[in-house]
């Protein structure tokens, strides 16, 4: 795979949109800038060279013509006045050199040949050990050797400030690219934060719909979505209230009718079914109510008596629920919600393990964990996450009698969120499940 392809696929790109956009803008601008700089540089180089060669040609032509015409004894006086910055004349054969084969040498030789209009043969040699130094050897019409010593200056001296300007420009590009990226990514981050904080049951502040058109549009769309969700929730509440009322009345009738009927096996079965129906309706209502807080206020409770009272209520109905590791002190929480969470844990432990142990610990940092432990079959590790989902049942084949409504843990999780805690399930060493709620 080519680098470009992997780049496009994002393997070599940083993960955040912000850095990706920044990188693409910066690299793109730098390449474009570098290209235009190179083109300008090349163009300038070509014209400067043409100019230099033109000057060389005319100067050399004039000088060689002068040397050729004046008497041999006066030539020495003119070598210096006729020399220029990048060439000088030497009367004589000059230094020995090697045949120059460089393009540049050929260009210069060609220029000089043109200058003297091919009247005098010319031989171009490079001086070994000295880069950039060339000597053109020729013989004047009287046979006297003449050497033109050429040290071409750098055609285009770069100004010393040019690198600084270049760095400054790159910096400017960088800053502007970052600003542009921020323009685009900042509203996106705000939108994400708003979506995270979205709680349709509360009337939080709407997302500000100012800013660039696209951003304003997205914000308006988000606010509209939020309102729609709130509306759906409200409708769901109304439907649930209606169902709970409209179902409970016929169920009450059914129950009364069954109870007043003659005592037959059919009646017992009917009562059992009615009981199941009741439980499903109740759990369903409880689940949907818990989904956006239960409206309970926080209050300060004595932890030891709270835990003990729950366990004693179980013990008083001959259920094997024990307390270990009670701690003293108070905690501020929603007691009814917490009681329901723990009752759900304990009910599960009793159902699957036959007995429950409640352990309370205070962690460093003041957090309190209450764990309900059992020695039942536990939950396969890969299903623990799913166990929190509504209507989850461990074994699809399991009898409805022990399966329950499948809402207990889901209710617990939502209530835990309502009191600002956390819930965790894990399998114990030696078998059994631990259900843990952490509150602060």
């Amino acid at each position, binding site marked *: 795979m080519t680098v470009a392809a992997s780049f496009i696929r994002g393997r070599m790109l940083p993960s955040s949109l912000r850095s990706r956009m920044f990188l693409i803008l910066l690299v793109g601008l730098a390449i474009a800038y570098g290209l235009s700089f190179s083109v300008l540089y090349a163009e300038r180089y070509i014209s400067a060279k043409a100019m230099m060669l033109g000057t060389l040609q005319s100067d050399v032509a004039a000088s060689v013509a002068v040397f050729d015409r004046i008497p041999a004894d006066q030539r020495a006086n003119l070598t210096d006045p006729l020399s220029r910055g990048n060439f000088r004349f030497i009367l004589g054969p000059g230094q020995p050199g090697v045949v120059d084969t460089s393009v540049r040498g050929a260009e210069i030789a060609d220029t000089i040949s043109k200058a003297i209009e091919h009247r005098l043969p010319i031989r171009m040699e490079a001086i070994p050990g000295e880069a950039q130094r060339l000597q053109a050897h020729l013989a004047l019409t009287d046979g006297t050797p003449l050497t033109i010593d050429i040290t071409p200056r750098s055609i285009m001296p770069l100004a010393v400030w040019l690198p600084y300007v270049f760095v400054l420009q790159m910096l400017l590009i960088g800053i502007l690219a970052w600003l542009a990226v921020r323009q685009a990514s900042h509203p996106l981050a705000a939108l994400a934060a708003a979506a995270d904080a979205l709680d349709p049951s509360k009337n939080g502040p709407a997302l500000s719909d100012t800013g660039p058109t696209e951003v304003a549009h997205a914000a308006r769309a988000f606010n509209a979505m939020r309102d729609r969700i709130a509306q759906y929730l409200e409708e769901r509440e109304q439907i649930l209230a209606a169902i709970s009322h409209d179902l409970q009345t016929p169920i009450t009738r059914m129950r009364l009718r069954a109870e007043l009927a003659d005592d037959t096996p059919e009646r017992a079965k009917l009562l059992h079914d009615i009981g199941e129906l009741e439980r499903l309706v109740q759990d369903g209502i409880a689940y949907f109510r818990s989904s956006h807080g239960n409206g309970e206020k926080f209050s300060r409770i*004595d932890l030891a008596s709270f835990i003990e009272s729950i366990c*004693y209520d179980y013990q*008083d109905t*001959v259920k094997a629920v024990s307390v270990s590791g009670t701690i003293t002190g108070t905690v501020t929480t929603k007691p009814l919600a917490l009681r329901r969470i723990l009752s759900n844990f304990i009910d599960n432990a009793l159902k699957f393990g036959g007995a429950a142990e409640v352990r309370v610990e205070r962690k460093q940092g003041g957090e309190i964990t209450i764990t309900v432990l059992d020695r039942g079959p536990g939950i396969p590790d890969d299903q623990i996450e799913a166990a929190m989902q509504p209507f989850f049942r461990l074994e699809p084949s399991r009898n409805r009698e022990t399966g329950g409504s499948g809402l207990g843990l889901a209710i617990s999780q939502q209530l835990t969120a309502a009191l600002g805690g956390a819930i965790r399930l894990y399998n114990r060493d030696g078998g059994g499940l631990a259900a843990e709620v952490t509150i602060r």
Partner: protein
Amino acid sequence: MDHVDHILIVDDDSEIREMVSGYLKKNGLRASVAADGRHLRRFLETNAVDLIVLDVMMPGDDGLVLCREIRAGKHKATPILMLTARTDEMDRILGLEMGADDYLPKPFAARELLARIKSVLRRTRMLPPNFQVTDAGKILSFGEWRLDTVARILLDKDGTTIALSGAEFRLLRVFIDHPQRILNRDQLLNLTQSRDAEIFDRSIDLLVSRLRQRLGDDAREPIYIKTVRSEGYVFSVPVEVSEPHQ
């Protein structure tokens, strides 16, 4: 001739009304029915009842409104048992705050309703004269403690909630309802029996010691619940009734 308790059932569903009244009659009570607030008012003008079973969810004036109305009128001493379709704990509290003596969520078992009716009647009859007016929704203060009879919680002097198990709450209620009266173990057991038909296998002595622990009472020198040798226990602190503070 023995007095037969007269129960008035107020429910908008005619079948439920009739079945409940039939069941209560079969179990030796006198029962009448009313379909709504209008019927209820008319019935109370001409009849004396011992207890009202009141449905919360009714068209027109709902049960909460009627409950408040009864509590404000000349039948304010009549015990009220609320029936409601709601199952949430918060609704139970709301119902009790309106002045109901007890609460039963729909759907209910007929046996459960009968047990609760009897329990409410027994409790209101056994109240000492100063508690003849129902104290539901009231705060009962004794010593450093306050008992919220609606939320069924005990508050210490700092306002911290001390949770009580169902049996502990019922025992404390029995003591508070009979202050400075010696109660023997049989009476306590009888009065503390759960209305939820729980199996009550704890001995009264164990329950008393738990309750003392909750109240911070030293078993050797108890302040609140004193032991009367070979007789039983006595709640030796005066109790005050106050309105619930918001």
